[in-house]
């Protein structure tokens, strides 16, 4: 029983981290049609803001609160200076986000002298879940992810500003005709996606430590999630990231389960489990080329 709870908790925790990372990417990709290859660096910037607060001797949680706003400001600045000019050329926009990401990553590398820095979680005491001790911080991440996911969904579907966003992105001319400032909406949406990435980075940095390549490690899996879930909907990439996030620890756990007196892990190395995530995702996409969800609410 203890193992099952631990297994479920670990899968849920890693899924939540993936969802957090993909949430911002999904908003920008699905709402704006921009594949932001610099998304990993927005995640990195969120983590870096927390590091700066730690270096200044301020509480970590203040850094975590400030991070999404700081990264949103950065996102807005990038949208106004670069992305805005490239909506008509999505490939160029994608390449420019790659260049922006690379620039941010290398600047952070110089700032942190290419080293790794540990950042302690604001809450370190484990909590008991059905009698099993689990990490309090991972539990908080799970809760926050659920809240954020719901919040984003409600914001985009139930508020008038959410309606303006969807309208501006679906039919910009009509939206402008109705008096909606589409350029303002675009900047806001991009900044909102960046803020979500910043928050993801700030929340997960205690689990992985800060390094210049922090965002890169998640970017490939994040894009895999978007591909698996389906582009064009808000829910698709979220579902995709939850599936990818569950597969990563899930396959490692599968190796440990005895089957007819034989453990797969004895013959299959962990590296195979990592590759298996990509194979399964590709097989799913083979049968569902548009991803798991082609029609969403948003």
């Amino acid at each position, binding site marked *: 029983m203890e193992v099952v709870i631990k297994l479920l908790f670990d899968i849920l925790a890693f899924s939540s981290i993936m969802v957090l990372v993909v949430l911002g990417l999904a908003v920008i990709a699905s709402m704006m049609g921009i594949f932001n290859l610099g998304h990993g660096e927005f995640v990195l910037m969120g983590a870096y803001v927390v590091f700066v607060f730690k270096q200044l001797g301020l509480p970590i949680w203040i850094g975590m609160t400030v991070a999404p706003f700081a990264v949103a400001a950065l996102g807005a600045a990038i949208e106004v200076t670069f992305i805005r000019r490239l909506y008509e050329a999505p490939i160029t926009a994608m390449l420019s986000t790659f260049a922006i990401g690379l620039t941010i990553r290398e600047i952070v590398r*110089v700032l942190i002298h290419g080293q790794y820095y540990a950042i302690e979680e604001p809450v370190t005491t484990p909590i008991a879940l059905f009698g099993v001790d689990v990490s309090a911080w991972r539990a908080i991440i799970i809760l926050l992810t659920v809240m954020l996911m719901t919040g984003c969904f409600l914001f985009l579907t139930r508020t008038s500003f959410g309606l303006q966003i969807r309208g501006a992105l679906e039919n910009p001319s009509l939206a402008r005709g109705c008096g909606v400032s589409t350029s303002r909406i675009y900047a806001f949406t991009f900044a909102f996606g960046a803020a979500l990435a910043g928050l993801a980075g700030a929340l997960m940095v205690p689990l*992985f430590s800060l390094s210049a390549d922090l965002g890169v490690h998640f970017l490939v899996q994040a894009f895999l999630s978007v591909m698996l879930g389906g582009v064009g909907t808000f829910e698709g990439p979220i579902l995709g990231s939850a599936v990818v996030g569950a597969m990563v620890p899930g396959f490692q756990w599968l190796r440990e389960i005895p089957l007819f007196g034989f453990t797969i892990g004895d013959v299959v190395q962990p590296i195979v489990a990592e590759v298996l995530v990509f194979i399964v995702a590709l097989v799913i996409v083979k049968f569902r080329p548009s991803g798991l969800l082609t029609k969403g609410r948003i």
Partner: protein
Amino acid sequence: MADVTAARGITRRRFLAGSTALAAAGWVSGSSGGWMLEPAWAADSGPIKFGIATDMTGPIAPAGIPTWQVMQLAAKKINDAGGVAGRPIKLFLVDTASDEKVAVGNVTQLIEQSRADVVMGGITSSMRAAIKNPIVNRGKTLYMYPQLYEGQECTPYLFCTGPTPAQQCAKLIPYLISNGHKRFALPGGNFLWPQLLIKYASNLIETRGGEVVLKEFYPLDQLEYSATVAKIKSEKVDCVFNMIIPPGLQAFSKQLYESGFQKNGGVVTCVFFDENSATYLPDRELQGIYSCLDYYKSVEDPVGAQLQKEFREMFPSAQYQFTAGTGATGAYRAMKFYQAAVLKTGGDLRREAVAAAMDGIEITEAPGGGAKMIAGTRHCAMNMYVAAAENKSYKILDKAEMVDPEECRTK
């Protein structure tokens, strides 16, 4: 040490930052694209040209930069004391840029244009493998590799001055077993250095009466280890011999700690941990981790203490520490071995003469104690220290004198 990280070229930003730092330190740009540090005095027969090919930029720079700084300190000390056989040491630096392709071109320039008499450098094993050919075979030059590594490098004219698996395990594993730790888990990154070190360690564990219950290799950027940690717990492992490197290291350490492994009496060992590891693991996870290296700042060693003092004076704003895990101690030994060999040849710098003189030579002054090049092996015996992390420092628990590297015996 075969750290494998995505290779990168030199960006303009890095180049400018690096160039400014070098110029400020008195280095002048050479026609070959590298940098030179002139000695304060000259000799009729010219200086000894000591080439340094290390990672000044890129992900491995935190190890390359202190190695380069220690070489400057070593050269300054030798030159201030009158040089080697009446000749000063002139340093030539090229950046290997954590990128093997860039490195091969730069090292070739170091050999062909700067005409280095000896080259010291390379941090990762992939870098050593890439630059040894242009240095030793095509360049017909002596090569000294300073970093702790997986062993089995038996190329003629290539001298290794860092610890080998035998040196890092010979004292540590019996120490752990004698302290009641019998069931071992050996997780590692999936590349050559952890694989060979873990192979050596598991053989030694079994010979000494311990039991290896888990031996697995993971992708370098794997960030999820819950299944491994669960197995460590269910198999009642009492010692984790960890060879997972960053960035996976931090995720693994956290999950292991959160599982209550240390709280329930388990111990962790990471043989490459030095004083720098305090930055990348939180105190509570670092506390008590065992390591085994050729030098720690807490070693009672007047030579090491003096070197640390001089290092701080020479580089008051150094970003990286002078520690054993970076290759810096091996670099200092390399310079001292070369000095001793040239003294023995009476100033003859031909590589055959120097290599022959280096065979079996002994040095007395190096961080952590003296060292002896074992005849016919091109590896050196050195003192090794078993230590445990304690409040961002290392408490020395045991010492083994002149531990044999156990390499290249048949060659």
